């Protein structure tokens, strides 16, 4: 078996090491595939589906699907762009995402991906669910309105922090993030230094009292779209040549 896998994304030849996923190989070649639940520090969850690409004619999540020799990946096609945009729109309408009043605005990956995809307004009706805020912890706030159920904090707490602060409860549209204490986050052993606080792609888990320390306009995605070199997601590179329109 050869040590190098060769496949194509929209005709461009990409090389990958055995075991690499499509998104990992694409990142190394400066092809930015949008992603929300995927983060290189935690295991692949493949739940958000925002990285959907077509592999040999079938839709697959690029984050979990292994690169394979000779595969033809369709990424920047009208069909796949619309599919990914549609999924990101679903994430917007199922929660309560009021960007102008959210202190994550400008640092939020959901917002940044939406801008990069040029989503102006979702095609689906807003659901306006009733969701709670958990402010019981002295240093950390959870706003469930903004949670996109990506599982990053669940895995980060378990694997990186060696704690078990988060888990999902309930199912379907009622699925939600829960904490390991009846007293709320304040009853857990979570600390501000935990990776789980800072891995949240949206404004659902926030450190307290630093809200607008970095002013709007000077935040990660204010000057360049997500997937550019100065974006803070370590998995993303400078990809100005591949705008996701």
């Amino acid at each position: 078996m050869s040590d190098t896998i060769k496949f194509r994304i929209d005709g461009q030849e990409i090389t990958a090491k055995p075991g690499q996923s499509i998104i990992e190989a694409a990142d190394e070649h400066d092809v930015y595939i949008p992603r929300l639940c995927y983060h290189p520090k935690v295991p692949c969850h493949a739940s958000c589906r925002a990285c959907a690409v077509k592999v040999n004619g079938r839709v697959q999540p690029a984050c979990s699907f292994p690169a394979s020799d000779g595969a033809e990946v369709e990424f920047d096609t009208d069909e796949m762009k619309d599919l990914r945009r549609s999924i990101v729109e679903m994430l917007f309408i199922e929660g309560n995402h009021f960007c102008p009043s959210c202190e994550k605005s400008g640092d939020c990956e959901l917002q940044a991906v939406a801008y990069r995809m040029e989503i102006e307004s979702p095609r689906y009706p807003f659901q306006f669910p009733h969701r709670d805020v958990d402010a019981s912890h002295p240093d950390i706030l959870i706003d469930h309105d903004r949670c996109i159920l990506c599982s990053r904090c669940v895995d980060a707490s378990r694997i990186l922090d060696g704690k078990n602060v988060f888990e999902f409860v309930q199912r379907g549209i009622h699925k939600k993030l829960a904490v390991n204490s009846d007293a709320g986050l304040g009853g857990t052993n979570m600390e501000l230094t935990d990776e789980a606080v800072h891995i949240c792609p949206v404004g659902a888990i926030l450190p307290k009292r630093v809200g607008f320390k970095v002013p709007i306009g000077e935040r990660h995605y204010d000057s360049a779209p997500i997937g550019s070199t100065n974006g803070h997601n370590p998995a993303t590179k400078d990809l100005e040549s591949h705008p996701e329109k």
Partner: protein
Amino acid sequence: MGTEASSGTKLLSICGDCARPGIYEIKLGTPLSEILSLAGATDVQAVLMGGAAGGFVPPGDFGKPICFSGVYSVSGAVVVFNQQRNLLDAVAYYMEFFCHESCGYCTPCRVGNELLKSCIDRIRAGDGTAEDKEYMLSLAGVMKKASRCGLGQTSPNPILSTLTSFPELYEPRLKIEKFKFNLKRATEEASAIAGHTSLHVKEERMQ
């Protein structure tokens, strides 16, 4: 036994509007109509082949053989609906079932089923518009393509099969004009809390 491409027999669980529901072992290739008479189903409006995630078969297709190339029930579930049944209610029932069944892991299934269900409910309530058909088709397409497992990939089937085979269920309910805001329905909950109806609703009623 069976046909060349679909050999052998198939166990079918036939239920719904028929005199003799039960488990039937049939030769593949047997026409659906024959199975319906075996089970004592008369005055049939539609047959749901393959359970909730299967498809509604219209009477025009009852002559087709039960095999891979004809009409087929992968799960073996066959539900008979007679002319007295409201098929759109049945579709809504199955969508409710999928909303409950969705585990919520992936976005398209978690959100898509809810959106399809609310669209069907809107049509049943008389608020369907001409755009709803296209809306449901495109939403179903996203779910079929992008869902993580078979549930989200097949849950739009009751809607898709009825849109194709029973367009008369939808068309009279899809108004040509754009959606008109229903002030009374929108303020119902608030009116109940306030204990009185808004002045604007009263004015609208008088007009």
